[in-house]
């Protein structure tokens, strides 16, 4: 057997972000506090991208900074808040200013729309959303959802338009240079996101060898053939968490929620934590080794 060279899809955060043009539609991975593409969001801000539209289930700190910096003001989304810590402060302010446009779906609806895109079918049926204002009240789409009589049973069923976004972006624990991705802990809707996008970008905490991937093929959630770019980026989900690697930085999140209640506070946060550092390495330096060490997960618990 001739040995094939292992394709190298590695790229830096700066370079991969340059590949995302203004106006791009992005299927956005991570769920709740788990594995959101935080460093990518910060780099989109540093590169002053505009007109991005995000498709996602749950949005928290990562997307709130994009709203604050007005990188992304259009969302097809199910949830936007910082869960136990309360409403997302920039979103709240930008909504009152009338700047943010939402198309509201439920979490399952968004996940199924990604699945539909991944399967290359134009729509997916769902038994939810029917009977509510989510069906009729629209802002971004002419056809948000439609109810039809099922051609087999006659029952009313809601159809949702599938999503095939320009980019799918997720964070994971490990991948090899060819983009075979291992995700530990919950997967959220990340499996579907990488399969519905025209280009998939994966940020990983650690690049491992192709040999290690092949020793545990059952751990590969996303085979490399779906993945276009791999970025090795330790703490790429800070201030949120990555199961088994590090916990969320609760003190920072509380500070964020408090500080960004005012525009002045947000501008200060933006200058200090995003624009004030040159890149991700600069951010990690600012957070400091001591704090990063505190956030490291205890392998026994995963956080």
């Amino acid at each position, binding site marked *: 057997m001739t040995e094939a060279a292992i394709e190298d899809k590695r790229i830096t955060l700066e370079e991969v972000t340059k590949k995302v043009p203004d106006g791009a539609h992005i299927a956005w991975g991570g769920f709740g506090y788990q594995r959101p593409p935080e460093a990518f969001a910060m780099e989109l801000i540093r590169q002053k991208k505009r007109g991005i539209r995000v498709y996602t289930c749950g949005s928290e700190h990562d997307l709130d900074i994009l709203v604050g910096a007005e990188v992304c003001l259009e969302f097809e989304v199910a949830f936007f808040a910082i869960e136990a810590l309360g409403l997302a402060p920039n979103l709240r302010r930008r909504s009152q200013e009338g700047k943010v446009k939402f198309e509201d779906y439920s*979490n399952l609806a968004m996940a199924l729309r990604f699945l539909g895109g991944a399967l290359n079918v134009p729509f997916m049926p769902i038994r*939810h959303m029917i009977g509510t204002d989510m069906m009729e009240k629209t802002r971004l789409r002419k056809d948000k959802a439609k109810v039809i009589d099922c051609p087999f049973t006659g029952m*009313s069923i809601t159809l949702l338009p599938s999503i095939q976004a320009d980019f799918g972006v997720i964070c994971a624990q490990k991948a090899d240079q060819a983009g075979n991705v291992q995700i530990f802990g*919950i997967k959220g809707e990340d499996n579907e996101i990488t399969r519905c996008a025209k280009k998939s970008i994966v940020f990983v905490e650690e690049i491992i060898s192709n040999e290690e991937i092949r020793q545990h093929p059952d751990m590969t959630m996303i085979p490399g053939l779906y993945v276009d770019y791999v970025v090795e980026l330790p703490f790429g989900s800070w201030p949120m968490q990555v199961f088994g690697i590090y916990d969320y930085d609760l003190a920072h999140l509380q500070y964020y929620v408090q500080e960004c209640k005012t525009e002045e506070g947000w501008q200060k946060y933006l200058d200090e934590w995003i624009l004030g550092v040159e890149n991700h390495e600069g951010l990690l330096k600012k957070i400091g080794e001591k704090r990063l060490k505190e956030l490291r997960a205890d392998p026994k618990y995963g956080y």
Partner: protein
Amino acid sequence: MEMTEYSSTEMMAVCGAHAVKDGERVFAGTGLPVLGAMLAKVTHAPNAIIIYEGGYVDTQNKDLALSVADSRLGYRAAASIGLIETLGFLMMGGRVDVGFLGAAQIDEYGNINTSYIGEFEKPKVRLPGSGGGNDIASSAGRIILMFTHDARKFVKKLDYLTSPGHLSGPGSREKLGLIGKGPALVVTDKCQMDFNPDTKRIRLKSVHPGVTPEWVKENVMFDLIIPNDIPTTAEPTAQELETLRTLDPQGIYLGKGQK
């Protein structure tokens, strides 16, 4: 017996726990429902299976979660999968008995708003949105709503209908093919409410100690049905309070030092 002092938040969590039966499959969100479900599991419902929409199935976490995706829920869970598993195969598949939800507004039929305050075209406040709320309200066997009591939350007409309660009354859920039976119980820090089985309209079920039915009637913005002989909600036992406080030692959801 000497009474143990307790806060109104603790009262809510205990009411939530009482609403869970042993062996049930329970869908919990973050906040007080987490505590209610966990308390039920360590007291009267050890065989309850707790599910979180991020993908955790049958959890036995030792620390309290701040997110439905929190790594804390992954410790000793039976499975960590994903959204299509939890909200799709389990929830829409009709395999969940009870779901907990919060609300910014509800109406007389238990329909829920978690999306906007004010007009949709120019909202005063953008709330979190559905998340999995609409999925849970549509397909969980029954719904328990939990939120702090404020007259402005009990409205004649919702600013936005995010998740279905009993919609416009008897038969309306069935007509749309919704498989869940809709809201069964509302727990606030002042009282509990349930729904008339024939009309599906909300009614007072019990008042917490120190609260009168008249107070509740004045503190909703619709004409609340008040049946005769409204009982007082049973107070939490000392054992329940002790257990509850060990589940939230830092007072993340219970609050600190309040009685």
